[in-house]
């Protein structure tokens, strides 16, 4: 990725030898450039971006689920947990990367720790809200039928909280896909790398448009997949509201 630093010449010197006229003339979008750079630059960046985001949301989900279950059982835990996750959520992303860089280093750990910390508030609140929204009469019926606490949680509360949980996951994944474009500050992977490169390349915009567009597309696809998953998992949520 070091070639990016060399972007100082008239247009894009590092590609000069093989540049098409589109690139030379700084047209808004050069399909030829995309075709040539898909395999070496864009596709790997996209894959890295998916991994960065999915790992962050997965870890964030596990942590948030544990926190939400604890707060569901012991309601006094809600306020301190909300406070801490809110503070984490409000730290400016670049500042957080800087803070992590010194103790953790310029590596994947800094990147993931930062991304995970931004999922916690969203996921924790949604999971807890979902668990709390289970109607009291349903819980009464579950207890009266002789379900244990654990059976009530697994068979009644979590399934009924699923729509709220998926809603949280949708916000989290879209947020993290966007946020992961600035992970390049501590870890040079993901779609943020070509975007950053493009920003340093002066007037040539194709790389910026393609990498940015891929990030948006990725967010929409991830959101769509979650909607689809929810429809399959909660057939009951769509019936007879009348």
């Amino acid at each position, binding site marked *: 990725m070091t070639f990016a630093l060399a972007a100082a010449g008239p247009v894009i010197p590092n590609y000069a030898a093989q540049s098409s006229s589109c690139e030379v003339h700084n047209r808004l979008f050069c399909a030829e450039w995309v075709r040539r750079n898909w395999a070496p630059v864009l596709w790997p960046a996209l894959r890295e971006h998916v991994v960065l985001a999915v790992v962050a949301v997965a870890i964030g989900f596990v942590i948030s689920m544990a926190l939400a279950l604890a707060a569901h059982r012991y309601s006094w835990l809600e306020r301190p947990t909300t406070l801490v996750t809110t503070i984490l959520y409000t730290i400016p992303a670049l500042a957080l990367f800087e803070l992590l860089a010194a103790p953790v280093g310029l590596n994947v750990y800094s990147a993931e720790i930062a991304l995970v910390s931004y999922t916690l508030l969203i996921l924790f609140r949604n999971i807890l809200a979902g668990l709390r929204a289970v109607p009291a009469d*349903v819980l009464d019926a579950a207890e*009266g039928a002789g379900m244990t606490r654990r*059976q009530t949680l697994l068979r009644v509360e979590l399934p009924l909280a699923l729509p709220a949980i998926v809603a949280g996951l949708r916000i989290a994944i879209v947020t993290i896909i966007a946020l992961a474009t600035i992970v390049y500050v501590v870890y040079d992977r993901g779609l943020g790398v070509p975007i950053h490169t493009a920003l340093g390349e002066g007037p040539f915009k194709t790389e910026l448009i393609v990498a940015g567009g891929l990030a948006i597309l990725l967010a929409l696809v991830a959101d769509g997949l979650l909607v689809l998953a929810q429809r399959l998992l909660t057939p009951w949520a769509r019936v007879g509201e009348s």
Partner: protein
Amino acid sequence: MKTADTAHSEGPLAFAQAAELELRSVSKRYPGQREPAIKELSFTVPAGEVCVLVGPSGSGKTTAMRLINRMIPISGGDILLGGRSVLEREPRHLRREIGYVIQQIGLFPHQTISENIATVPRLLGWPKQRIAARVQELFELIGLDPEEMAGRYPAQLSGGQRQRVGVARALAADPPLMLMDEPFGAIDPINRARLQDEFLSLQEKVKKTIVFVTHDIDEAIKMGDRIAILREGGVLVQYDTPREILTHPADEFVAQFVGADRGLKRLALTTLAELTLIEPNRLGADLVADGSLQVGRQTTARDALSLMLTAGGRPLTVLDGDGHVAGLMTLGVIEKLLSDEAAEPHAGPR
């Protein structure tokens, strides 16, 4: 599926199980409250009978019911189900043996009707085959079409259908005791009357011991083999058959609670078949022949009185099942019924 299965091969016996319930000086005291919520409550419900707990709000009737399956911990006294103390039992095991129906029904919205009904059998770990057969049997019992209903979700049912599914779910594991907390409270009056009738004929078949909570004295009189009237502070004022309570209220509180029209309510408990009617010839043939109103013998004395009042006090011709004249119903017969009942010595619970 129907023929091979164990539950089905048990046939009508699958519903025959019922146990006696006995409360012995049961009390409930909440920490920080000076007065107990339930005070020294004692009564016995014979196996297969419906006991209605009735009283104004604050009388602790729901609390008393929830003490039985230990949804609320007991502070003192003991409760015996089939001669065995519920305090010795693991609460969740006890609850799987006690059917539980609440006013809001509390069906699981994410489960199909079949899955809802199968709740307790699944907790008990019944084999799949047996559960399927039992669910089928319960659909028939509550008069819902399994073909149409099995795969639906609760949100797709009417209030009355949900209520019946709630009863089926409570009956699923053939519990010896059912607890029902205002089960028809959320149903509109017309459908409520129908569900009450359906439930009474269902009870004819399943013969469960039932503790039924309501604040509605008319419902209590209609549904109960016995009625326990509670007063504020969880004090049992009277425990008797509906007829005894209407004829001999224990005190002013009960008399007020059952209402000034208790004479009329009492008439609703008697059908013409139970009365000594007037021989037609004693009033002269013209009265029978003149096309006076004709009623069946299953008509209640209350309805007969209402008809007579509408007809300007003229007698009714009572017909038996074959359409023959069984006798005549006059205002005098009603008068005699009321004076006879009032003269009876206090019988106490039978």
